């Protein structure tokens, strides 16, 4: 049973991060390689709000989440918007530069020392015993709950929401969408905002569970295979991809050799790229276009 819990927690981390990659890619065809840094920035925003609002921990958390949404939108408005009409590669390279800039800024502002926002907020991290004698901490459990809520909300938003439909339209045919009066920049800014919000949610919950340090940026990269395996333009794919990668990783750690944990996600990715390059739920035409 503990094995299942471990898989679900890891899959939730990957899924929350991977949906950020997918949201931006399906709307603008840009691979955001600064997503790990934006996730880490979200966690550090919690450190900032926690130090200022330690008496109101819930307000600190909500403010940090809201700030992450705003930061994502700002990144689009002040940086990525200028890439509109340029080659996709130029936009991707811009995200690489953004990542380097964010890493430097985070170090300058918060230093490289480990941070523990949960202690700053005065919260505990109780452990619950589940059937089968499996154990899960509060924040690990919240990672799973958040994943369910975020994906559920995103499915409803994209399916029935006015802005969700606009996002889908912009992703499928930006020219036609623009001609029909959809404000593409607003849609793209919303996609960047939501992407940063979901990544930051993962970053904050990881930081609340086990602390925050500058190695978090590498976790963002580890979730990338989940998005690719599921299909870069499919949210359902990101969810399934995260489950596959997490199951493979935890299984290898448990039954084969922990040393292979780092390799397995990329091994699964290579197999997927050979067998089905557009991913499990990705669109084949979109890949051809890329």
């Amino acid at each position, binding site marked *: 049973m503990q094995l299942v819990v471990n898989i679900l927690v*890891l899959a939730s981390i990957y899924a929350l991060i991977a949906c950020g990659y997918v949201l931006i890619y399906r709307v603008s065809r840009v691979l955001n390689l600064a997503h790990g840094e934006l996730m880490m920035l979200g966690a550090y925003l919690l450190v900032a709000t926690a130090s200022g609002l330690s008496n109101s921990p819930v307000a600190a958390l909500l403010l940090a989440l809201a700030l992450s949404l705003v930061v994502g939108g700002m990144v689009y408005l002040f940086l990525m918007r200028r890439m509109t009409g340029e080659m996709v590669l130029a936009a991707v390279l811009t995200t690489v530069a953004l990542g380097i800039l964010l890493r430097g800024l985070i170090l300058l502002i918060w230093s*490289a*020392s480990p941070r523990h926002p949960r202690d700053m907020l005065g919260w505990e991290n109780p452990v619950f015993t589940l059937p089968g004698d499996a154990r899960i901490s509060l924040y690990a459990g919240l990672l799973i709950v958040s994943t369910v809520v975020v994906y559920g909300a995103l499915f409803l938003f994209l399916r029935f929401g006015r802005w969700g439909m606009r996002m889908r339209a912009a992703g499928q045919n930006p020219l036609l969408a623009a001609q029909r009066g959809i404000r593409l920049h607003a849609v793209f800014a919303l996609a960047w905002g939501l992407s940063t919000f979901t990544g930051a949610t993962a970053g904050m919950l990881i930081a609340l569970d086990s602390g925050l340090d500058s190695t978090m940026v*590498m976790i963002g990269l580890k979730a990338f295979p989940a998005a690719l395996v599921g299909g870069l333009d499919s949210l359902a794919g990101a969810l399934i991809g995260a489950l596959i990668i997490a199951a493979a990783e935890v299984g290898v750690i448990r039954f084969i050799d*922990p040393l292979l944990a780092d390799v397995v996600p990329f091994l699964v990715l290579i197999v997927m790229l050979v067998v089905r390059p557009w991913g499990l739920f990705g669109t084949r035409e979109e890949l051809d276009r890329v």
Partner: protein
Amino acid sequence: MKFKSMIAGIAVVYAAPAAMAQDTIKIGLTGALTGPVAGTYAPAVEGLRLYLDGVNAAGGIGGRSVELILQDDGAEPSRAAANSKRFLTQDGVVVMINASLSSTYAPAIAEAKRAGVPLIFSASACPPEVFPPADPNLFCTTGFGPKYDSQAALAFIEATDGTDVQIGFQAMAIPVSRGEIDYAETLAGEMGMTPVAKEITPPPAPDYSPFASNIENAGAEWVWSWAPWVAQVKTFEALRRLGWEGDYVLYSHLEAEGELERIKDAGLYAIGANAMFSEGLPVMEEIASATEAAGSSYEANQMTEGWIAGMVIEAALSAAEDPGDAASVRDALSSVSVDTEGLRGGPLEWTEDNHFRTVQSYRVYRWNTDSGQIETVRDWTSYDVQ
């Protein structure tokens, strides 16, 4: 007359920087000041900078100031190589310092050797070349020492609980950490302990529970962890979340003191070569004052490694016949003996043959839940470095 004045003016303009350069002793440091592992190195570098600032404020070395040139390599070998080249070809440093991951060692060692400039490893793992018989050009001030750390940790477990124990190991998937834990596993077997698990975690893991589950399932009563701080402590905390009630020994890196206070777990032991600031020694108060005066973003208790490196550099430059000459400084380093004023278990001494230290001492600390403060569980235990 006008022409002569002009020549004299030009001579003054060009001679002035040369004279100023003569008044400065340059030291070049390449370190992981940014990037994912910066937390392990940046505070130590800050400690070294503060120490040398103090040396300069007190008049420098024989009236010459010491200039510390910092270059970030982000733990990337290519950047470490470029930094080293710059130090040697442009800056004219007399000593180079490496405070970065072991992957940056090879280019730095090669460049330093080619230029005949001594290279000191500080806060970074000591390479095999500094142990007897030592490479004449390489030195190491870092507290932790491969093999000796595991010997001391396992000796502590033996002294506490005997050898009839089931022991697990934790390392990070980097060569230096894996090598040490492989050695520890063999040594534990030879001592009569039963190794039951060895978890090598990637740098970093999003969730350490799967690795911790293996250790718990194997029935480990003790765990010895030798890895960067994040991997050590996150594995421990994941074990506790799983309900594991064993004892955990980890290496006391520069984050240890603050983390023992945060975790407050009597079953978590930190073994290391540096004393903790809970001792309240005068030198620690000096470091704390310097940290506060500089408005540093790091805690004073994270600066010990850098401070000790500063002590060694000051001692070597003071003893050198010509502190502006690399060969002269290297000769001085080869016979340096520094009183660490309690920051370590004894003086740091180097000989022609031994550039690690002649004696390596360890102390073990943990959180005392009754007194609500850090306590010394085992006082300095020394090992002759052969």
